């Protein structure tokens, strides 16, 4: 009798553990950079470069003070709103154009042109169209973050395994159901890779937009701190943003691990 060749969960956890979070070696690296910062600052002794400990001690008051509700949470909200809009629009448009080959051919020129426009370039235009504030920031985030998702979804949908499509057709699956049941899951590994880039892009563009066209948010906070010579606070803002990015990326990897369980199993199978 044939038996299934399931991989024990323990092995699965060990393999996955390597990709998630920081292991001890990773933490040592962080520590080394912090030490180098501390040392450089002590040697140079310039107000523009406070010690690491000074910057770090400014983080506490920033994240517990009024900046939490006036800057950090609004930034998080805008980044996530922009990211989710980018994700949904990128997946739906990318998969549709990728699957509808003819239509996709017409659109590739436009897509390639639009995605080569650096999003910060659109900030002046976005301010004219939407005014200063959160809406404008979200719009600029979407203008930047939608492309990695859309392009990856497009490419993946174009390369859908032909036998998957034949199988679906022989089961009478077509139209939107085909995209949902077959094309999207098959494209998911590439879509997730695009989403991860979109997530970090969201944060990067977010702060630029907030510096130029908002009166709240982490970008605005950092610029304010710099212009009022609150140097430790400036660094604290940067550390908070980096921490936020790290947290979101880790959460993303956790979600990805769940969603793509099958893909890791299949690729492990094929490579022995």
């Amino acid at each position, binding site marked *: 009798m044939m038996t299934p060749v399931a991989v024990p969960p323990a092995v699965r956890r060990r393999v996955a553990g390597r990709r998630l979070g920081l292991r001890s070696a990773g933490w040592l690296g962080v520590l080394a950079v912090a030490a180098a910062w501390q040392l450089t600052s002590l040697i140079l002794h310039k107000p523009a470069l406070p010690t690491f400990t000074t910057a770090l001690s400014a983080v506490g008051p920033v994240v517990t003070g009024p900046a939490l509700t006036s800057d950090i949470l609004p930034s998080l909200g805008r980044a996530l709103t922009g990211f989710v809009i980018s994700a949904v629009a990128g997946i739906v448009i990318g998969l549709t154009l990728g699957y509808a080959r003819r239509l996709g051919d017409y659109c590739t020129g436009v897509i390639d042109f639009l995605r080569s426009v650096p999003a910060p370039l659109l900030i002046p235009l976005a301010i004219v169209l939407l005014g200063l504030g959160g809406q404008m920031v979200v719009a600029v985030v979407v203008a930047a973050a939608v492309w990695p998702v859309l392009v990856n979804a497009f490419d993946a949908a174009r390369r859908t395994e032909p*036998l998957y499509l034949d199988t679906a057709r022989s089961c009478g699956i077509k139209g939107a159901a085909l995209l949902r049941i077959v094309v999207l899951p098959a494209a998911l590994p590439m879509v997730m890779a695009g989403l991860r880039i979109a997530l970090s892009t969201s944060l990067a563009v977010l702060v630029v937009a907030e510096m130029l066209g908002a009166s709240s948010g982490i970008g605005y906070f950092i610029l304010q701190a710099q212009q009022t010579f609150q140097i430790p606070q400036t660094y604290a803002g940067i550390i908070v943003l980096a921490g936020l990015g790290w947290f979101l990326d880790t959460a993303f990897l956790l979600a990805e691990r769940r969603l793509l369980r099958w893909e890791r199993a*299949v690729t492990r199978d094929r490579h022995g």
Partner: protein
Amino acid sequence: MAEPAFLSVTGVSKSLTSADGRVLPVNRDVTMTVQPGEFISIVGPSGAGKTTLLRTLGGLTAPDSGTVRHRGEPTRGVPSWLSFVFQEYNKTLFPWLSVRKNVRLAVRDIPRRAADLRTGEALDQVGLADFADHYPWELSGGMQQRVALARAMASHPELLLMDEPFASVDALTRAKLEDMVLGLWQRARFAAILVTHDIGEAVYLSDRVMALSGRPSTILSEVRVDLPRPRSQSATRALPRFHELSSRLLALVEHAGQESR
């Protein structure tokens, strides 16, 4: 007037375009009829266009000329009364769906209760009821092909089209799968068309074997297999008649392969 045949294929020709834009004539003027519940195999030299013919019969591609008719009606697209089993089970089972959900895809447009029932029944028939909640990649190759078979059975097809379904498994598993298909066929009495390069397999399973010529292929000749049923691997394959028919087909296919070179 005579009742129209279950499946009649008339003058089907099909060309494929290669990646560099050349047009390759693959099938030329293929004509055949299939009776209800009949088991037919198609054999031929490699590259003869057996798969292309099967895809045309099943509506996955349209013929350049000629017609495929089901009880007199021309078919359009993939009809709901037939199902496919392909060679590469690892590309026709969706790895993100459990075994049960893969099978259920074949019956998604019937009411939920009935679909669940059919799914369970089909998995039972191939002996995989206990593996319904596993994922395809947790199963061996032979088991995966049984899942594909269950999916094909779930929709209660009148015609089962199989493209080298046993080519990717070991010999013992292959013999077991052949008998499983025979058992299902004997019970449900669908018609079956099997594309294979294994002449022994074609003779063992079929009522009739069609030998294709080299490309562009047409039907060279048809051999009626008058071996008694029910068949069994050891007894049937030991019959002198089995060897006689196999040799005849082998000679046909070898000859066709040389012609096309």
